[in-house]
């Protein structure tokens, strides 16, 4: 039976072809051609994704099986795609936001040399390919292939300006921390194979197989998967790579570290929601880790002075919110927040890119100020993004964040209050960023002031599109309390994510919560306005200094982990390698030398000793012949 969705293989295939064309031809093609290939393939994938989405909305899901990737004994792991509601939604986000960022990049990166320009776009296409593989995979292994692929592309793109050693180190840091998480992910996959003999989603999540797993198995597997997610989605303790990853070009930060790669962990857990719902322990771990990360990152963001670093910590914080949602059972809320976050975070990053571009590469906000006059479009879109992230209705951020806060409240009011506090901090630091950058008087150099100009259309149009999405994107998930039947998202995702009964709270409580959060957020914004309206850069002291230095977490890791590892490595090199390994290898040579020297003495040239040896060997031979071999 032919399924219309058979052509889904084109969706990842086109970016892969784009990667190959741009990668191989980067020395020969011209910049317009490279841009066309790079953006065109993503656009085609986007169009296909829209079509797929319409199909799935109409109820047509598809499991595409291509070939057996691994076939060993009884274990068969197919290379298969699973097109259902969850994956089609993510497809839209990835290709849609990805396309906008590609278009933005053509202008942002236009000062690069052609071959580097081509390299950039090939990496971007490869990244989109890997991410698509990740969300379309029908089993944990294909997901993991995409998982690794995006990690690789993240490394390649963070270290894009490879001549700078600091950037290279940041790229390595990202990759290594990802790897640590990946190890846990792999162990989880192995555990699954050992217990169930399969890794396909449909088979693992079937009731029969779930009954086979003991409670311990499920807990361990889900915890291991979550550790993998902390590496990829930058939660405690594997989050320190994300701020350093800002070394890459700004569109990269927007695509990878705001909209897509970091949401891979959320996707994975949402996909495995059946497993997670069975272990309250893991859910608690997820929720508390997410909340702690959110709070920590928010406090650090309060005192950062690099425009991109503020946004990076904001990303970590928002990801923490998403994990909080997952941990309290609100899978749909988490996916909803992924979507809205993709919109406004990408918008904020691209906006910051626009600012940096205008400031001729300056990223320190202490040297900015008063940019709203010269960069009007950037300012307005940035403002919209800030409002969305703060969560003011009717912008998209409000709906998704409120769903999360509600779910936290249902779980425990303490969780809710801490989450609410973090949300307030979010509003505060985002508007701090906005006001310091765009209001007040200009604090930069004369030359920078001279150069200030609004970005070209290819950069501002994506900004505008994303701003519009940030405004209206929330309307797919209007909660029941406001509008009956307004929560289209939950209904859409219900085949994949089971509905969790009715609300545990009454509508009036919901209204009260919504009103409370909105009011407090507005108060915070006004407070920020007063504090930062005419900002003067000051030396940070006391708690501020601690926050500015990110709670010294990086230094802690360095002292506790990096330095001992380096010492072990040096020890192995100087002691073990030199004496044992070298000793062994050289020792063999020395032994051969020595024994040959001794043997050479046998060749004395003395006939007498030769004859003696002859006689002795004859004796031995006789003994063997007559007495031993009976």
């Amino acid at each position, binding site marked *: 039976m032919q399924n219309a969705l058979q052509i889904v293989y084109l969706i990842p295939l086109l970016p892969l072809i784009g990667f190959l064309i741009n990668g191989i031809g980067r020395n020969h093609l011209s910049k317009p051609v490279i841009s066309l290939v790079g953006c065109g393939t993503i656009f085609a994938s986007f169009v296909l994704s829209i079509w797929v989405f319409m199909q799935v909305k109409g109820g047509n899901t598809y499991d595409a099986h291509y070939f057996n990737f691994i076939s060993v004994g009884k274990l068969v792991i197919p290379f298969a795609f699973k097109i259902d509601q969850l994956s089609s939604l993510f497809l839209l986000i990835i290709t849609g936001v990805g396309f906008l960022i590609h278009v933005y990049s053509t202008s942002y990166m236009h000062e690069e040399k052609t071959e580097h320009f081509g390299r950039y776009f090939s990496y971007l296409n490869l990244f989109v390919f890997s991410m698509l593989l990740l969300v379309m995979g029908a089993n944990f292994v294909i997901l993991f292939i995409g998982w690794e692929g995006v990690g690789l592309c993240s490394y390649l793109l963070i270290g894009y300006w490879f001549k700078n050693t600091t950037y290279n180190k940041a790229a390595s840091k990202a990759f290594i921390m990802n790897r640590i998480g990946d190890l846990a992910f792999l162990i989880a996959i192995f555990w699954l194979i050992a217990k169930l003999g399969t890794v396909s989603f449909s088979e693992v999540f079937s009731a029969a197989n779930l009954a086979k797993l003991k409670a311990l198995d499920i807990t361990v597997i889900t915890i291991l998967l979550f550790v993998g997610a902390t590496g990829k989605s930058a939660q405690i303790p594997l989050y320190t790579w994300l701020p350093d990853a800002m070394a890459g070009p700004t569109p990269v930060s927007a695509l990878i570290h705001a909209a897509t790669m970091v949401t891979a962990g959320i996707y994975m857990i949402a996909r495995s929601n059946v497993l997670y719902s069975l272990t309250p322990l893991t859910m608690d771990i997820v929720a508390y880790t997410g909340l702690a990360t959110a709070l920590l990152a928010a406090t650090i963001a309060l005192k950062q002075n690099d425009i991109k670093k503020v946004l990076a910590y904001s990303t970590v914080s928002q990801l923490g919110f998403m994990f909080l949602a997952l941990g309290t059972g609100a899978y749909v809320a988490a996916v909803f927040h992924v979507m809205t976050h993709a919109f406004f975070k990408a918008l904020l990053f691209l906006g910051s890119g626009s600012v940096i571009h205008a400031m001729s590469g300056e990223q320190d906000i202490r040297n900015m100020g008063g940019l709203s006059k010269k960069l009007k479009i950037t300012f307005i879109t940035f403002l919209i993004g800030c409002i969305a992230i703060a969560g003011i209705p009717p912008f998209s951020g409000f709906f998704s964040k409120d769903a999360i806060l509600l779910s936290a409240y249902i779980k425990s009011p303490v969780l809710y209050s801490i989450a609410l506090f973090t949300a307030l901090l979010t509003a505060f630091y985002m508007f701090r960023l906005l006001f310091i950058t765009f209001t007040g008087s200009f604090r930069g150099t004369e030359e920078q002031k001279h150069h200030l100009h609004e970005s070209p259309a290819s950069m501002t149009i994506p900004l505008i599109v994303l701003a519009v999405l940030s405004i209206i994107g929330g309307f797919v998930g209007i909660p029941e309390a406001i509008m009956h039947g307004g929560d289209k998202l939950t209904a859409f995702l219900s085949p994949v994510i089971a509905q969790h009964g009715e609300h545990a709270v009454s509508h009036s409580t919901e209204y009260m919560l919504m009103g409370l959060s909105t009011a407090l957020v507005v108060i915070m914004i006004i407070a920020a306005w007063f504090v930062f309206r005419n900002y003067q850069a000051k030396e940070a002291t006391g708690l501020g200094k601690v926050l500015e230095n990110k709670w010294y977490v990086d230094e802690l890791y360095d002292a506790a982990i990096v330095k001992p590892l380096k010492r072990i490595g040096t020890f192995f090199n100087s002691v073990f390698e030199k004496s044992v390994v070298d000793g062994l290898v050289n020792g063999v040579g020395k032994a051969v030398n020595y024994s040959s020297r001794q043997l050479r003495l046998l*060749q*004395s*040239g*003395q*006939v*007498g000793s030769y*004859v*003696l040896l002859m*006689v002795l060997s004859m004796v031995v031979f006789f003994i063997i012949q007559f007495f031993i071999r009976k």
Partner: protein
Amino acid sequence: MVKKNNMPINYYIFLSIALFSIGIVGVLTRRNAIIIFMCIELMLNAVNLLLVAFSKMHHLRLAETNAVAGADGQLFVFFIMVVAAAEVSVGLAIIVMMYRNIHSVDVNFLNRLKH
């Protein structure tokens, strides 16, 4: 049971072995090349003795069927003597050459083989 005119063969065997070993000890113990040569002759003779004894043994066993049953052994001894003679002549010529070059018949001086 020993007949009047027969010797058990193992006496000859042991005698021959004894003479052979004496020859070997001589070869290993002496440094004079000529003496070593002579010990080799002793060894050869021990073997000759044994061969003759065996030929008589075969003759005893097979005399009814074959009148010349053990002749091969003695003929072989004859040829051994032939070869020994030739070998001695050539060997002594070599030793004389050696003496002419290094003025000694010490075998240890032959370690030039090493080079």
